[in-house]
């Protein structure tokens, strides 16, 4: 993929964000309304196929470009990146671990956005500790029958399918060896999306509780065709997920910074624009520096991923740093805007409410620190 092409693609998405997203984002978010029209536009644009390889009907952009696209979407409205992210993680798992038949059956339709996916790992009692999930999949003839419940599942209501982690062997030791992944297409036989969760931020997009009450899933939908591979399959997609979340944090932080630096030149206090007060300048400089560092960490992790190298360390660092930077930058932006920043008249309050999700999703930042430390100790073993 050449540079000019990547730039054109990023420009096209930037334009979409400036023209169509920014004018309506806060309004939709406050009403917690699903952005059907914007999602339709994203379909037209081809975003649902961004990282799906060209031979399966996608755009096949690299992860560096993908990260920039997610940054752009999040600069407008972070929830839109959520619509794409878990869909493409599911596609990633199918691309890298699915059978040829599964790739042909799912990927082209996913690339067109006709089939829209999500990822269902988390359960009411198990988030970070994926191995302790309780959803089980029992073989019954040509089907597996799934029972259990999933929690916090993004895209569950408006998507058409989910990549579901379930135990095909609940007593396996180690526990992860009993986990398998299924491509589950929603039908009248289930699963049931029992409720949408009300959230602090990241509104508009559906994050749901999903119930599996003896839902039959064709054995042909066991991803990769062999049991017990699920944990490995999910882990392989985590680097991508973390790069994505880090890129979203950069986008939200960018938006917060832009709001702050614009406002600081318009607002006058004590006879001069507040950007002339040194205390405000210190904040602006600090915000921009963290933002730049975060963006470079994301680019670095993505570059390694594109080169086919292992990047769990870099992706973990990018996710950890960028999400913390985003939380700080959005709070600082609120300081710069003073009272207005606290009102819904300006989008900064939305950035501030969206920021914490990036510290939690795709592995909490504490888990990132564990991953980073574990890898560091491997690399620096004496």
């Amino acid at each position, binding site marked *: 993929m*050449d540079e000019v*092409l990547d730039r*054109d*693609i990023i420009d*096209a*998405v930037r*334009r*979409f964000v*400036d023209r169509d997203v920014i004018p309506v984002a806060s309004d939709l978010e406050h009403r917690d309304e699903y952005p059907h029209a914007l999602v339709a*536009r994203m379909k*037209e*644009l*081809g*975003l649902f*196929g*961004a990282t799906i390889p060209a031979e399966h009907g996608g*755009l096949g952009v690299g992860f560096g470009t993908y990260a920039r696209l997610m940054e752009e979407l999040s600069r407008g409205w972070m929830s839109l990146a959520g619509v794409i992210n878990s869909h493409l993680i599911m596609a990633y798992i199918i691309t890298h671990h699915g059978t040829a038949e599964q790739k042909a059956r799912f990927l082209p339709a996913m690339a067109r956005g006709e089939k829209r996916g999500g990822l269902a790992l988390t359960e009411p009692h198990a988030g970070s500790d994926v191995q302790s999930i309780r959803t089980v999949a029992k073989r019954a003839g040509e089907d597996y029958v799934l029972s259990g419940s999933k929690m916090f599942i993004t895209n569950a209501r408006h998507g058409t399918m989910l990549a579901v982690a379930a135990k095909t062997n609940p007593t396996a030791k180690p526990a992860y060896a009993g986990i398998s992944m299924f491509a589950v297409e929603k039908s009248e036989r289930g699963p049931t999306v029992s409720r949408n969760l009300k959230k602090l931020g990241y509104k508009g997009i559906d994050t749901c509780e999903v119930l599996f009450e003896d839902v039959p899933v064709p054995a042909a939908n066991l991803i990769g065709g062999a049991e017990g591979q699920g944990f490995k399959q999910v882990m392989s997609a985590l680097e991508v997920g973390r790069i994505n979340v880090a890129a979203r944090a950069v986008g939200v932080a960018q938006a917060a910074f832009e709001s702050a630096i614009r406002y600081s030149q318009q607002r006058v206090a004590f006879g001069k624009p507040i950007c002339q007060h040194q205390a405000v300048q210190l904040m602006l400089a600090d915000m921009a520096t963290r933002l730049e560092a975060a963006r470079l960490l994301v680019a670095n992790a993505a570059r390694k991923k594109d080169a086919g190298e292992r990047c769990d360390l870099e992706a973990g660092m990018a996710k950890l740093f960028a999400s913390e930077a985003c939380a700080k930058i959005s709070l600082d932006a609120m300081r710069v805007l003073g009272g207005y920043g606290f009102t819904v008249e300006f989008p900064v309050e939305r950035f501030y409410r969206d920021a914490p999700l990036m510290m939690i999703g795709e592995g909490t930042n504490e888990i990132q620190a564990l991953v980073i430390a574990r890898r560091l100790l491997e690399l620096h073993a004496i």
Partner: protein
Amino acid sequence: MKILVPVKRVPDPATTIRVLPDGSGIATDNVKWVINPFDEIAIEEALRIKEKQGGEVVLVAVGQQTWQEQLRTGLAMGADRAILVRSEAALDTLAIARLLAKIAEEQKPDIIILGKQAIDDDSNQVGQMLAEMLGWPQATFASKVEFQDRKCTVVREVDGGLETVAFDLPAIVTTDLRLNEPRYASLPGIMKARKKELKEIPADSLGVDLTPKLKIKKLDPPPKRQAGRKVASVEELVQVLHNEAKVI
């Protein structure tokens, strides 16, 4: 139907334009460049015509190498191929029209659709000049374009209302704002555009007199907006609007 659409590269309308201190031009650092919005409408119209009745949409730009970007965007929207007439010097409207006339003679389009004006210097001249040079009918400020065989009917936006004109092809149409809403270049479209033909021709190879007849002497930025003012009551507001602003 073969449709030729001239395209100009202009600063993004959302960019803040700063005039250089000596008034010789605008500061171009930090300026984002886009297709002239009226030309985008022209491309959209051409694509719709092609989608309805088949044919080919050819873009043409007169400018520097960087103008490829805008041509590529047009190709990504769906145009079939593009021609860049390379000129390093900035040309005036007459020279542009002459070059376009040459290209038209060579390409033999059934219709040329242009923006009614470019949003940078607002000349509103090229379409009219081109019609004169080619001896073709013209319909400027179009808000609706329809065809029946070789006959074209255009609704024009004129002062105080609409005017409907009909004429035979080949012809020139220039677009007004309400003609259509241009589509986005989709990401797959952008990828396909990379493989489409983008031919470069040096402007001075076309045997056209390019000597400028027009010289920009000086640019002045618009006056700074005055700060607003608070009034105490509706009565005072009405007074001020009537006596000072003289708008009611």
